[in-house]
């Protein structure tokens, strides 16, 4: 045992309450519990996923922060000391799961939303229509139309767009990173709620082809499971360049996770590591990207092509290039975006916040007069309907949620996704764990979440005195900053509260 590693948590069993049913032993996928006359927890192994707490029929388990104290040092908090100890022990790259957990300022929490008083009326969403329908994709600068018998008629059809009944989509998470049951939950919920989910880079399981109209298929640097039927299975194709949690870094799904299903879906042999290179080896420049975009368009009858990038310093110029290269959707993933596995130092120190990236991209595309040529999807740190409303006001056409969707399916944010032991059956491929997630139940929870957010977004719109989400989109005049410095406000294009 690694004696230098203090346990993070302390598991306490109330032995008086415990009726020795051993459910905790079965629930814990991290091997905390053993049994010898009574339940014995090994706190060293606990990750605070709380599965046992939820499963215990007697409420006999409590998990505490470790009460052990180390002498305080502001420059060396325990979390950093632990990293050093771990690396001294293993000599390896620190790995983690989920999004950046460093205490960077959360700009969304410094933005407040307007409401109507006297000079314009607010609107009651329970009594008046309130519209959230959103279309993702390229729009022409103008329409060619005529009036025939008093009715408008299009002279030219529009390019294909993705129709959403709510401006929130499910972020792409691969089959491999998450379980098939998690994918099924997302697909079913997307269908029910009139939105879309993304396949991520792991291909599309054959059982999910029926959900094509609610699917965005992804083509990433590893090209796992990419074939012509796959590219045509969804409503759009996404080229993944980068991910907010690990900009500039590829992916690694270890061989032990590559079972028969994943092997078939990804089109790689069972048990081999699935390695996604850091860049696409056929995209070393913007003109290469253009070729791939148009190759995909030709292969799919001109379905919208989305390009997903991590938000990095020159995001505005990069996004402009992507739009000029022919992308119909720019998917911006901020540095708070989640991941199944990433090097901790990269996750915590590379990339920029979505709020600033989004504002900069929306501004630049407008300055260039090409904002209507592509939709913007904002992701990486959307936690609530309020975040979504603020992102839309900053200029997003829609938001994507990954972590929030996992939370809806039971995730407790233990950040141990990279271990493959997810106790909730989400981020794992072990059959005894994946069966813990019932797709019907997962879909129901995801639908509930979207329904709730939909109602809340409508309340915001009503308070703002508008009855359609496009009247909020990019309307930064309806936001004010509280406690943000002048430069940040300038980048956001938002006035300080009081002005």
């Amino acid at each position: 045992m690694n004696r230098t590693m203090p346990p993070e948590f302390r598991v306490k069993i109330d032995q008086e309450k415990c009726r020795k049913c051993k459910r905790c032993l079965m629930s814990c996928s991290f091997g905390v519990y053993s049994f010898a006359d009574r339940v014995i927890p090994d706190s060293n192994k606990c990750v605070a996923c709380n599965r046992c707490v939820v499963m215990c029929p007697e409420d006999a388990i409590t998990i505490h922060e470790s009460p052990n104290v180390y002498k305080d040092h502001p420059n060396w908090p325990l979390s950093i000391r632990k990293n050093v100890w771990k690396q001294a022990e293993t000599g390896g790259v620190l790995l983690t799961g989920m999004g950046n957990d460093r205490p960077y300022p959360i700009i969304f929490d410094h933005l407040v939303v307007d409401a109507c008083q006297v000079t314009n009326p607010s609107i009651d969403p329970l009594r008046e229509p309130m519209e959230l329908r959103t279309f993702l994709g390229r729009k022409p600068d103008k329409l060619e139309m005529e009036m025939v018998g008093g009715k408008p008629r299009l002279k030219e059809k529009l390019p294909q767009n993705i129709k959403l009944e709510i401006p929130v989509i499910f972020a792409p998470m691969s089959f491999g990173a998450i379980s098939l049951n998690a994918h099924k939950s997302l697909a079913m919920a997307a269908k029910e709620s009139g939105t879309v989910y993304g396949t991520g880079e792991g291909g599309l399981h054959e059982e999910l082809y029926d959900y094509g109209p609610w699917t965005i298929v992804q083509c990433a640097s590893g090209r796992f499971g990419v074939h012509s039927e796959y590219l045509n299975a969804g409503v759009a194709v996404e080229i993944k360049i980068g991910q907010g949690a690990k900009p500039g870094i590829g992916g690694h799904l270890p061989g032990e996770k590559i079972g028969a299903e994943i092997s078939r879906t990804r089109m790689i042999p069972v048990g081999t590591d699935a390695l996604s290179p850091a860049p696409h080896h056929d995209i070393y420049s913007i003109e290469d990207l253009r070729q791939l975009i148009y190759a995909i368009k030709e292969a799919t009858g001109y379905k919208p092509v989305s390009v997903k990038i991590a938000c990095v310093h020159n995001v505005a110029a990069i996004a402009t290039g992507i739009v000029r290269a022919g992308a119909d959707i720019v998917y911006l993933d901020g540095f708070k975006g989640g991941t199944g596995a990433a090097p901790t130092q990269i996750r915590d120190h590379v990339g920029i916040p979505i709020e600033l990236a989004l504002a900069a991209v929306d501004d630049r595309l407008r300055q260039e007069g090409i904002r209507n040529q592509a939709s913007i999807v904002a992701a990486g740190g959307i936690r609530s309907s309020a975040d979504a409303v603020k992102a839309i006001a900053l200029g997003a056409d829609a938001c994507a949620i990954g972590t929030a969707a996992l939370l809806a399916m039971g995730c407790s944010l233990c950040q141990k996704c990279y271990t493959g032991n997810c106790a909730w059956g989400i981020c794992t491929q072990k059959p005894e764990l994946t069966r813990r997630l019932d797709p019907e139940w997962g879909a129901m929870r995801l639908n509930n979440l979207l329904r709730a957010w939909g109602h809340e977004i409508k309340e915001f719109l009503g308070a703002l005195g508008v009855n359609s989400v496009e009247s909020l989109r990019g309307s930064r005049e309806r936001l004010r900053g509280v406690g943000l410095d002048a430069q940040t406000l300038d980048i956001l294009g938002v006035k300080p509260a009081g002005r």
Partner: protein
Amino acid sequence: MDHWWQKDISGCGLSGIINWDGKRISGAVIKKSVALMHDRGNGQGGGFAAYGIYPEHKDHYALHIMFTEEPGKPTRDFDDAMKETEAYLDRALAVDLAEDIPVRVTEKVPSHPLLRRYFVKVKQGSLKGTNMTEDDYIVSAVMHINDKIDNAFVFSSGRNMGAFKGVGFPEDIADFFMLENYEGHTWTAHNRFPTNTQGWWGGAHPFTLLDWSIVHNGEISSYGINKRYLEMFGYKLALLTDTEVVTYMFDLLVRRQGLPISAACMAVAAPFWKDIDRMEESEREACEAIRMVYGPALLNGPFAILFGHGKGLIGMNDRIKLRPFIAATKGKTVYMASEESAIREICPEPKEVWAPRAGHPVVVEMGKGIV
């Protein structure tokens, strides 16, 4: 990015008359109508647009220009502003008549700008080598004066039409400009209730561009995105009023992009999805496209507007009718106003009076009537 602008907020009353047969009506009539809605304003702005008033110069663009203080610009001797403007006009355009706009000073309108009008044409050859139309050329001249020449502001620039506006109640502004001496086939009037003291004559309504004039009662809640959308197409929003946004939006959709006017109305007061979903295929497809492409042009929030364009008059409400708006007909005359009383004041027995449905424009065309 300049985001330090402050929007101008106001409420109002409006009235409009059109005789679609072209019979001309005295300015005294519209004054009487709007005066009845005195309480809808607070004396901070009144104005009128009149069509068919300059038949003897009907092929000239009539530039109404005020020389006065302008917000955000240094103030100088107005005669200098006038001289600079006139030198520019002589260079850029053919000026066939330049004169003071006749006014009658009363104690109700104690001070006023220097007010001049110029009947101009585009000089032969000016358009050579450009892809501009005459209208584009005039718009650029107007923009030049308003933007570049301090203390000069063009407040009307159409043909055979003119705007008359200032700080005061509309009935006093009508007396000041002696509108009883003008006859037009179409009139609109505006009574303004800004929340701030304005004091600037150019800030009164109507807002005009070429033959177009807009009077507007409302407070557009989607102003922020409407402004950014127009900026993407190169418009500079100087006045920060809803009326300016409405005018430029129609300019963009109809003049620059060539949408039929009724389609433009559908963009600014879009039908609801629940109604679009029930339409037959080709109409549904067209309306869906309008909403997809022109979502940022949707004017959301309360408004009633009167949009005069020389060949007719359009009146419309926002998509859920959050501002009053009444229409009436008698013979070949159509009346539209914020209040029915303002119509009955000048037409005691209309043939038909109705409250137009939310988002459904009343479109009157010269020679045709309500279409």
